[in-house]
């Protein structure tokens, strides 16, 4: 039985990633209200943090007088973390329901299947990020400049990819949606044990030590450029390196788990 010629491998892989991303958008477009939780959680946190801890700017050594400006990147990155972890939950649901078997039984390479999930999360993180950003502007946060905004969005999309790798690795490891709280809590802990609430010097000593080794602190500081202070390459590249390192480690773990699903 002759088969028609298939596409060259690189084209087939791109087409598969695009098709998986197209499927992922169905949840947003075809399920009413699906986008709401992803937008609501970081927005509530933004408004809450601002209303509750806003007075912290009065502390000596705080780098800005506007707490809104200070925490905008926090909430945007939280949105990224939430979206990425949710991608992991969706993958767990797909595994439980048998959909993932369809993907695993096809000749598509495992990294292609993972890329579909991760890139969808990155794209989807733009929604809560933009929503928080607009609300922050309304509440008086400063305009970060185009360069600041671009850096922030870069950090956000990459962070979502990191979170999606984390969530996917857990989903493939446990093959169950009950790992969802771990997916969400893990990302929350990673993002908030940084210069999230206050500049480094004003954190409690133990938190400061953690923030100093936490790579996401570099990401947070890079994303905060423009909102607080200026934008410079010196502040930006550590964030990029941190994200690449996290992507490499968590991506490798997720890929390993994807390959081990048959074990």
């Amino acid at each position: 039985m002759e088969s028609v010629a298939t596409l060259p491998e690189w084209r087939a892989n791109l087409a598969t990633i695009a098709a998986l991303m197209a499927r992922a958008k169905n949840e947003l477009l075809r399920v009413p209200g699906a986008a709401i939780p992803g937008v609501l959680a970081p927005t509530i946190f933004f408004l809450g943090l601002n209303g509750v801890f806003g007075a912290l700017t009065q502390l000596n050594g705080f780098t800005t007088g506007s707490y809104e400006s200070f925490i905008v990147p926090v909430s945007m990155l939280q949105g990224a973390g939430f979206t990425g972890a949710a991608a992991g939950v969706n993958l767990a649901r797909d595994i439980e329901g048998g959909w993932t078997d369809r993907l695993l039984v096809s000749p598509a390479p495992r990294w292609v299947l993972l890329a579909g999930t991760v890139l969808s999360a990155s794209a989807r993180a733009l929604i809560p990020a933009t929503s928080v950003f607009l609300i922050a502007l309304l509440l008086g946060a400063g305009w970060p400049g185009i360069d600041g905004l671009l850096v922030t969005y870069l950090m956000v999309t990459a962070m979502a990819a990191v979170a999606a790798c984390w969530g996917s690795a857990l989903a493939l490891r446990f093959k169950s949606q009950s790992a969802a709280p771990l997916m969400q809590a893990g990302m929350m802990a990673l993002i908030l044990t940084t210069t999230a609430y206050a500049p480094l010097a004003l954190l409690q000593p133990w938190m400061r030590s953690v923030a100093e080794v936490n790579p996401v602190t570099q990401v947070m500081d890079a994303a905060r450029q423009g909102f607080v202070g200026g934008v410079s390459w010196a502040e930006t590249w550590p964030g990029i390196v941190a994200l690449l390192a996290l992507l490499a480690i968590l991506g490798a773990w997720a890929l390993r788990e994807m390959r081990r699903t048959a074990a």
Partner: protein
Amino acid sequence: MAAAIVVEGLERAFDEVLAVQGVDLEVDEGEIYGFLGPNGAGKTTTVRMLTTLLLPTGGRATVAGHDVVKESRLVRASIGVALQEAALDPLMTGRELIRLQATLQGLPGSEGRRRADDLLERVDLAAAADRRVGGYSGGMKRRLDLAAALVHEPRVLFLDEPTTGLDPVSRKTIWEEVRTLNDEGTTVFLTTQYLEEADQLADNVGIIDGGKIVAEGTPESLKSQIGNPHIQLQLAAGSVADAEEVCARIGKLLPPKDGRTVLVEVENGAADIPRTVRALDEAGIAVESLELVRPTLDDVFVAKTGHHIEKDGEEGAEPEPVEA
């Protein structure tokens, strides 16, 4: 003829439990192989190993000439799979699903679109193609799953319990489609817990129980191993002894089931019925009912394992056999 599937000593352990314990089988190209056994016998585990979804913990297997462990990707490019839980996304339409499957198989977009149209027509889903799968009936979902498995014209098709839970009409449709595919040259490996399905569709049957193959062969050869058909007579009270005397001259008497039945094993099957009826009539014996009982694959199963494939009454009505 080359072998499409070769399995040697295949084993799969989950923690301490051996779900599949040393399965050997061979399926020729162009054959329909029926893997028959009760729930929990190891059918699905075996299929998952042959389709590279599960790694064996012992033994080896090749599908379409490629080792399932070492050349798993080449195996996946040659097989079509329709699993027990139809792996469908309720938010997609039927057409979208087949086109996604085409992309997964590396087919160009235009080719995928063309094949989707053809396959949807073939499984009679053209009308529902642009409705969401979530609204499909069970039978429609199975037909869609089957269509998706065929999009790249695979050499070997794996069907895991393709008609479990379906109504008789849907079941017949699937059976006809499997026969057509096989006529076109596709090798089919199907698992089932339904005797009729194995009997009707399979060229060769492997009966599995407790992770091991307990019998293998064509349905006819398996059944003839068990013995000849027998005639079952239901009689009015008081005529049993006389009937037994008459029947003993026609064939071999078997132990009766109850006080009003006579069982006689006959060599020529249905051809012996007219003799039997005439003999009883001449002796003036009134017969309430007469039935020719053929051995079934369940009888084979019972002979080999000591229990039935289907628990009494568990599976509900068996499908009507389709006249070939």
